[in-house]
């Protein structure tokens, strides 16, 4: 008996060791893909005309328009402009999917309805979704929305107008094609481009007019460069991003720690199989001993 218990404890120790061991599984999300595309929104250029809101609805075939503006992202709104106003501070703010470098939704999704695909665009596939809404829990920006008032709901979020910009036959980007919002913007407050170009562009704007942009300790900040592991949609603004509704995140993807723990415990499925073997053996010995006693 004491022997059996020791075997069991050893088995548990193996399982425990797996849980704390460092893990290599996270490397694949460390950086945006080489061909990544994205958007840059400069709040200081936005005039709040909401043309992008209407354009988004048209491009994605969703009801509503800027004359009846949506108050929040929802089951039929993938993009909104909101006004932040307090004391003498005002700013417009655009919300849509951030197309994270290490997306929480993709990490959460059981059988891959959410996928980070070509050009790093995060898309959703209705045929793989069961509507569990774990993506909504996992998104640090609360972007994926669910259609609450229908028996056959969809998950709705910006897919960077993948159906417009991306030619599925050739697998390449369509020449000159833009996401609805970027095409509609009269002020180039939101622009579409190659991820690396957008970063250069944002850095140039800061270099040209550093006084125009907010950052901690007066050092202008590009939101999304590292936040939450980085996002392919970048932001510039003249106010604290937190006031504009973006969360304060570390430099690692929020998915990273959860993934490391999950993979640590289940690496190679060794720990569960070992535990099963140990449990079975212990019980088998116990039952054999009991039978002997019964004679």
């Amino acid at each position, binding site marked *: *008996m004491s022997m*059996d*218990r020791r075997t*069991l404890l050893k088995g548990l120790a193996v399982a425990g060791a797996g*849980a704390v061991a460092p893990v290599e*599984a996270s490397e694949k999300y460390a950086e945006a893909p080489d061909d990544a595309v994205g958007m840059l929104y400069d709040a200081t250029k936005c005039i709040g005309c909401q043309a992008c809101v209407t354009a988004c609805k048209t491009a994605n075939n969703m009801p509503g328009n800027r004359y009846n503006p949506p108050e*929040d*992202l*929802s089951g039929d709104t993938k993009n909104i402009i909101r006004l932040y106003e307090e004391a003498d501070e005002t700013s417009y703010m655009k919300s849509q999917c951030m197309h994270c470098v290490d997306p*929480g939704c993709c*990490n*959460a999704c*059981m*059988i*891959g309805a959410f996928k980070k695909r070509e050009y790093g665009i995060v898309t959703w596939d*209705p*045929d*793989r*979704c*069961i*509507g*569990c*809404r*774990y993506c*909504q*829990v*996992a998104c*640090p920006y*609360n972007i*994926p929305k*669910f*259609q*609450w*008032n*229908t*028996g*056959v*709901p969809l998950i709705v979020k910006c897919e960077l107008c993948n159906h417009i910009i991306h030619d599925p036959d050739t697998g390449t980007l369509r020449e000159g094609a833009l996401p609805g919002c970027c095409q509609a913007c009269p002020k180039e407050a939101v622009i579409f481009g190659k991820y690396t170009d957008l970063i250069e562009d944002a850095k140039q704007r800061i270099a040209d007019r550093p006084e125009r942009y907010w950052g901690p300790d007066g050092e202008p900040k590009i939101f999304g460069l590292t936040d*939450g592991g980085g996002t392919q949609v970048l932001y510039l603004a003249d106010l604290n991003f937190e006031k504009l509704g973006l969360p*304060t*995140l570390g430099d690692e993807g*929020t*998915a990273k*720690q959860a993934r490391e*723990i*999950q*993979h640590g*415990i*289940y690496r190679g499925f060794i720990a569960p199989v070992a*535990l*099963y073997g140990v*449990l*079975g053996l*212990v*019980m*088998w010995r*116990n*039952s054999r*001993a*009991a039978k002997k006693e019964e004679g």
Partner: protein
Amino acid sequence: MAGHSHAQPVGGPLNKKFVTFMVIFLGLWVAVLAYRFIFGIGVVSGLTDYYPWGVWIAFDVVTGTALACGGYAIAILCYILNKGKYHPLVRPALLTSALGYSMAGLAIVIDVGRWWGVWRIPLGGFPDMGNYNWDSALLEVALCVMAYIGVLWIELGPAFLEKWESTSKSSALVGFAKAGLKFYDKALVWIIAMGVLLPTMHQSSLGTLMLLGGQKLHGLWYTPWIPLLFLISCVGMGYAVVVWESSLSSSLFKREREDSMLISLSGAMVVVTSLYLVLRFGDLIISGKVPLMFNSGWLSVVFWAEIGLFAVPLWMLASKQRRSHFPVMLRASILLMLAGSMYRFDTYITAYQPAPGQTYFPSFLEIFITAGVIALEISMYYFIVKRYPILGGVPAEASAQ
């Protein structure tokens, strides 16, 4: 081990009033469910895009399966640590586990928006199969829970086979039962081993799930140790439920209560609860979160209430003298069930703060749907213990004579 147990059906006619009430209540429930399936989740619930998971997940699934860990907790004690004396507790515990998990499965189907695609999960999608996302703790929970529901009913199989073997008029069914019981005699240890492995996996993963909430989960609850805390607390809840359930069923069905056995179970509860509290505080101290215990506003209050719910029953059970008094032990067990439940509610709802200004409170119909799930579980428990050999066989009067 699989040999014939001393369990016997309670027998007797079903209580008419109880059955009538349940039929009406569950009829209404089915109507509300139809409404939900036709018009969507929004019309019956208080769920929002910011709080996509409410009581259906936090209670029916996460708390419900933890409260259904009696079978798991007793199996560890009885079969792994080889304390055979607890054997009479196994079947009732397995029944509540099997029912609890089945109801959790039902609640998931009610909760998910695109429920008709649930069958795709074990296949890894369809027609494009095999795309399992092993990064997802939820996938592991889903597969484990599906498998465990099956394992629990298989573990409970002898109860049904024994009944058929002894009372069925069909010789084919008797033969099937005989062959089945023979099979169990050989295979049961490996089935039970599965029945211990699966909850170990998914009860911890139910904690891992909320790590993806990231900054949305308050620091007092967000910890890399969350899988371990969920696992340990579910074992404690499992023992507590066994105490509560035996006490309830012995008084309802007038069976002799296994007092001394239940009281010695409380030793296991003390161990598990102490371990939980040491880890919970140890983690908070090591990660420098002690100030959060006091400066998190009303969440600090919630935190201490939760800790108190663990600490008070631990204190009640700590002394051998106190815990050998059954009513004390029962009260402590109920507090422990509440403690584990509150820990889960806090992790999934109270301490989950997706964005400033967002709140969630369940709607009446949402709670009604949960009540219906519980009612269905109670009805099935009642029917099964009446007809099948689950509870210990000695009626209280008989032993008193």
